[in-house]
């Protein structure tokens, strides 16, 4: 119940901000922060619970973005339809790629997911209709009332998507599914011997995780009025989606949310005040510090200090 009140408040706050704040850049930056909450939450379903480190976030995210862009170019479909289609395509990619790669363990799975990102990028570089290497300019339709600015609308939309993603992740965490995934993380053999259909569960997790990443990517072409392969399939998405749960803590749904909020906000601030190169460096440094000093993330750290008292 408290969760749903919090979720309602988050959406309400987003709507209130859209109505009261006129400074557009706030929403431009906020969109990215909230988008990383969705990506990190999605990543954590497979990476945090099952322990399968996925570097393929850009593949799912990018496929979602391109699905939306191509659909818009072909049919001028409304945004909600674009998002649904993007989730479907990315979910299908998660299913297919999961079946092929989730038999691999540890570092081998991670390498396979990097390959997946490269493959997806290559496909879209060579697809002329989707703009090829030069990209695709897209004309935004007017915002839907009551929103007077498109960016504000996208921001509120992304907050709603984040609430849905977190609610889904929370459900998975508390259900038999989450318990099975955690069993897989701790010992795949023992999980099988305890009746857990490991491959089926991993593929399902990869599918859900991929669909959420795809959905998070869908509004991107409209956000930028532009899409091109180099930045869409950028590995920075993979790093961000992976670093945030590590910082916040992978054990529960709150970790990726806190981690993404802090890391992404900091990145936005540094990009503006110092440089965008510096923000990439920051992620690396913070990630190393957390892996060494607080392997269970901020939530783990909090619990350890709290338990000592």
């Amino acid at each position, binding site marked *: 119940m408290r969760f749903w009140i919090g979720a309602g408040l988050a959406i309400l706050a987003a709507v209130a901000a859209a109505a009261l704040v006129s400074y557009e850049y706030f929403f431009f930056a906020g969109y990215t922060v909230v988008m990383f909450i969705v990506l990190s939450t999605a990543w954590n379903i497979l990476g945090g619970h099952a322990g399968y480190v996925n570097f393929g976030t850009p593949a799912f995210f990018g496929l979602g973005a391109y699905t939306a862009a191509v659909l818009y170019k072909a049919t001028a479909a409304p945004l909600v339809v674009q998002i649904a289609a993007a989730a479907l395509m990315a979910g299908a990619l998660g299913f297919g790629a999961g079946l092929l790669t989730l038999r691999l363990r540890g570092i081998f799975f991670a390498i396979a997911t990097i390959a997946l990102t490269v493959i997806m990028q290559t496909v879209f570089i060579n697809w002329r209709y989707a703009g090829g290497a030069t990209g695709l300019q897209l004309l935004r339709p007017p915002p839907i009332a009551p929103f007077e600015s498109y960016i504000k609308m996208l921001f509120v939309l992304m907050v709603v998507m984040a609430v849905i993603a977190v609610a889904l992740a929370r459900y998975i965490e508390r259900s038999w599914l989450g318990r099975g995934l955690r069993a897989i993380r701790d010992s795949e053999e023992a999980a099988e011997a305890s*009746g857990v259909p490991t491959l089926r569960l991993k593929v399902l997790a990869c599918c859900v995780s991929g669909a959420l990443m795809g959905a998070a990517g869908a509004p991107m072409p409209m956000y930028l009025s532009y899409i091109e392969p180099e930045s869409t399939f950028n590995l920075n998405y993979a790093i961000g989606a992976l670093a945030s749960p590590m910082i916040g803590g992978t054990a529960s749904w709150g970790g990726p949310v806190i981690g993404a909020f802090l890391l992404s906000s900091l990145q936005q601030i540094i990009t503006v005040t110092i440089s965008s190169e510096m923000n990439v460096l920051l992620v690396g440094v913070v990630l190393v510090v957390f892996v060494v000093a607080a392997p269970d993330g901020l939530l783990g750290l909090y619990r350890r200090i709290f338990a000592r008292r």
Partner: protein
Amino acid sequence: MSALLGVRAVAKRFGGFTALDGVSLEVGAGERFGLIGPNGSGKTTLINCVSGLLRNDAGSIRFADEEISALPAYARARRGIARSFQVPRPFHKMTVLENLLVPSAYVVHMKDAEGEAKAMEILASIGLARKARAFADQLSQVELRKLELARAMAAKPRLLISDEAMAGLAGTEVDEVLKILFDLNEQGITIIMIEHIMQAVMRFSQRVVCLDAGRIICEGTPQSIVKNADVQKAYLGA
């Protein structure tokens, strides 16, 4: 006694190495069955083939009148085969109680409340109730061995394979684990015990099979096994 488990001409190779070379044996319902053999004789490979973590290259494995050698491990667990691991493999970031809830959710399909009650019962019966809320990575060696058995029990198995549940334990601890296994057998669970501690196998088993280099070299009552010349040769290398 009708056969619960029937292994026929099972072979397993790893590259050029033949780990199992045409092993056949039967285990009756309710039996206490001992599997012995020197290191590397194929004991664990055999039970990996039975429990499904490995697929046998040849031969057939039947459980409760059903061919199971093509089934994945989780499906075999759901049919009633449970096992413990030689090197304990707890779900170490879960509590002891949660460890047991995995099989109770996935094998017995119990709701959490019901599963928890059942799990506490099991933990109490083997003297681990005190540790129910402790994380598995904080357990001692003997507690880990007990957790392995408790988790196997939570799956309500018909056949329990205990893979060296007593390795590295002290005398009284061996007796404790042995008592647990006797109690389970009394409840009607068929038990295959793999063990290096001869005294324990001999006390426990009604029938013993000795493997050496992937073949069965001897089968019989515990008394006849210890006197068997081939067994002595395999163990002592004489």
